[in-house]
């Protein structure tokens, strides 16, 4: 087994505005199973961060436990990283984000880490609209413990063992919508053309940006009868539309004439341009998203793409009016404002 990726890259590898190439956003060589969907998502993260010219040191990647939660080692090797306790990544991000609002927080979790052990944590991060990107690498099974059905496995779906799953699946995108997430999308690890712009839009969004990425477990859940294998997902995939993430000052490329388009301007001036394949969807309406998802599910189709976003969202810092500066930038004068200020506070409480 090769543990080191060769140092050489394509001699004409392009560089971004910072002068970095994709190589500068790579991490260690993956030790996941060959063909794991998670590796494709890692590659999509690398591609997104490269294209957005984000300085790697401005990103903090955090995860829980599981195959998915190993992946932050495999991308952004020069960023901050925190591999937390199983299902507890949202708490750690909350703390980190409260302490330093200047970093870009990228949480990586799996279906077990989010929909089972971490469900409570997940729910509260969503309802507080914590400013972060939350990616679930969703393979419908517990790959790290030999492929038991997870809480996102569809009813009747069979993993490698061959037993149909008896229990109703938790649809994490649905849960996120219900709990007030301000950016919700679904994608497929095998579709980088869709996933990369979604990640870029999620990074630019202020508030809780959730992407549920179906990511086949090639070892335990890529067999006939599984609803999360490569072939099944490809055959049942539908997209809400083509997302084009347009950074500020760049021209928007045109849609095909028979499609309706919708544009959402984000707080940083960038634009999410959606060429809609489903013109019944209104991406600014939570109800519309819920309705469309249900509609596709009833027809046995998997709806992917951007489902909902609220460009005017107020994140947790806005809601609780917390420090505008990272805590480490506060000096002694700001932290100990003196007797007079204390006196004022005390007086106001009398």
């Amino acid at each position, binding site marked *: 087994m090769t543990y080191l990726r060769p140092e050489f890259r394509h001699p004409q590898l392009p560089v971004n505005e910072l002068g970095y190439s994709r190589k500068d956003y790579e991490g260690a060589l993956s030790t996941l199973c*060959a063909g*794991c969907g998670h590796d494709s998502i890692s590659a999509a993260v690398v591609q997104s961060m490269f294209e957005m010219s984000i300085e790697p040191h401005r990103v903090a990647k955090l995860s829980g436990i599981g195959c998915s939660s190993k992946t932050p080692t495999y991308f952004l090797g020069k960023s901050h990283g925190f591999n937390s306790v199983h299902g507890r990544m949202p708490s750690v991000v909350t703390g980190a984000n409260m302490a330093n609002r200047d970093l870009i927080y990228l949480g990586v979790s799996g279906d077990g880490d989010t929909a089972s052990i971490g469900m409570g944590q997940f729910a509260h991060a969503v309802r507080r609209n914590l400013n972060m990107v939350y990616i679930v690498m969703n393979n419908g099974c517990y790959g790290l413990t030999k492929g038991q059905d997870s809480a996102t496995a569809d009813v009747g779906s069979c993993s490698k063992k061959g037993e149909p799953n008896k229990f109703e699946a938790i649809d994490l995108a649905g849960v996120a919508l219900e709990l007030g997430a301000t950016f919700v999308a679904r994608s497929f690890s095998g579709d980088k053309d869709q996933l990369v712009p979604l990640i870029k839009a999620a990074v630019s969004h202020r508030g809780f940006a959730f992407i549920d990425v179906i990511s086949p477990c090639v070892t335990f859940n890529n067999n006939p009868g599984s609803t999360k294998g490569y072939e099944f997902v490809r055959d049942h995939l539908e997209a809400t539309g083509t997302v084009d993430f347009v950074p500020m000052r760049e021209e928007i490329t045109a849609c095909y004439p028979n499609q309706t388009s919708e544009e959402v301007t984000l707080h940083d001036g960038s634009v999410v341009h959606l060429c809609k394949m489903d013109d019944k969807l209104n991406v600014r309406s939570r109800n519309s998203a819920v309705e469309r998802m249900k509609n596709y599910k009833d027809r046995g189709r998997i709806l992917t793409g951007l489902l909902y976003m609220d460009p005017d969202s107020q994140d947790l810092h806005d809601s609780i009016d917390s420090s505008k500066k990272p805590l480490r930038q506060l000096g002694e004068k700001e932290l100990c404002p003196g007797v007079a200020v204390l006196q004022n506070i005390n007086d106001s409480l009398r």
Partner: protein
Amino acid sequence: MKPTDTNNPEYYHKVVDCQYACPAHTPVPEYIRLIAQGRYNDAYMINWESNVFPGVLGRTCDRPCEPACRRGRVEEEPVAICRLKRVAADNKDSEAIAAAMPAIPTRKNGKRVALIGGGPASLTVARDLMPLGYTVDLYDNQPAGGGFMRSQIPSFRLPATVLDQEVNQILDMGVSAHFNTYVDSMKSIIDKGYDAIFVGTGAPRPKDLKLPGREEAEANIHLGIEWLASVAFEHTKAIGKKVLVLGGGNTAMDCCRTSLRVGADSVKCVVRSPRADMKASPWEIEDSEREGVEMFENHTPKEFIVEDGKLVGMRFELVRAEYDANGKRSLVPTGEPDVIMECDDICVAVGQDNAFPWIERDVGIEFGQWDMPVVDRVTFQSSRPNVFFGGDAAFGPENVITAVAHGHQAAISIDLFLNGHSVKNRPAPGVTLVSQKMGVHEWSYDNSVANDLRYAVPHEDVGLSVKDRKLEVELGFDVATAVREAARCLNCDAQTVFEAPKCIECDACIDICPTDCLTMIDVTDMEDEAQLRPQLKMPATNETQSLFVSDSLQTSRVMVKDENVCLHCGMCAERCPTAAWDMQKFTYHVSKAGACAVQEEEQA
């Protein structure tokens, strides 16, 4: 878009850039691996089978393999292939090599072949025909075999012991060599009743410069290859203190460096063209400059200056190169005053020509343009069916490795011809393609890619080497350095073999490929490769390199691989969950004389 036909052996052959570029198609990565394993005898024999003179070529080859080496496209410098070859020759066990030589039948097949000229082409024909039972007579005007390898390549680049060993290896097969015998008539050879005649007489006539003063200065003007031969055979032992060498090829470099060793204090090498257009190999120029030779570019010789009947200098006109729209160069005078360089002697090394004054024009050998024999490019047969040409004699001056390649092909033709077969019936190459998989993620070759930059070969001290004409300048790699240099080889013969039906389109290979060689793409609307090239993950701009296009996948896309900068690291195959990618070792052996008989036997 049609899928690539990888059953055509030339597809994978072209991926092994070094082997493909070598005129004799020596399996380079294979012998480099053997050197790294310390198996010098095996490495030597692989070379010997292909290029007959590993020790000679490991020092003097023109190295067409090195500019082709993939490493040169991935980083700065190619693998030092040539000098690794020498490591095999330097470290071989002579007894083991002698034992590995082919058996020579004591009972001959009754066919007699004459070889005219004792250089690499003729010796290669002998090497291929002797094991088949032919009786071979070799004629050469020099006192020993080797041809221009002996007379033109100075001993400080190629020690006589190395040359003797590899020439004798062939002569000792039982070739009856007639040295010091100048063949002055083709008719006389034909009259001896040979069944076939091979002409490997090289390009022996040096070009001269007919400029004013040439005749008066005759005593101090030397023609490059003649002068080098005269020094090699020790007829000439001295030259003046100040020497000018005219010409920019490897012969000129050898004249410069030889002059320093036989008494010159100052040597100036003067070239008509810009330095960038000099024909000499870059390393030959570098070696000359290290020894103190001065290079002058854009100087066109005008006149030999003679005073009191003796050469005292040379006048040059200054020029600059101008190129027309077709890239054709013309040297235009700059108008600056002429330059005069003082000198005692001048070596003229401005090229060499073929010369066949000894072939009568009525023996059925047709001559064409530039008074060159009409020779078939594939079969090396002349218009007289039993006369074959090879080496520089066939199509003009080339190099040793090309002469060897000609010799192999001519030997095939002679063998076919004398067995009553058509010479057009060329034997197919011997090809194998075998998986290198040892375990789930283990390969039987070293797939890790070394980051080392090219190692330099150590040289003898300049002060010492210019004093002794026979002291070898290059010292060769020691074993430790050789192993490190060998690790730079990318093992391009470990081919990435793809089976479309196994692919589940998980993208793992595309994500992992360090050099972005792979793309999955819909090509239904594309008509040809030119449309596909710019659309790949990294646009395939190097059009000399092939694209592999797979059969259609499940989603009706295809897998495309740009061979250009593939590291052959095997990561695609390691990350492939279904073994749709596999690393398979490709061997390609050019068939030699006798292969047809073997193939026929097998079919029967």
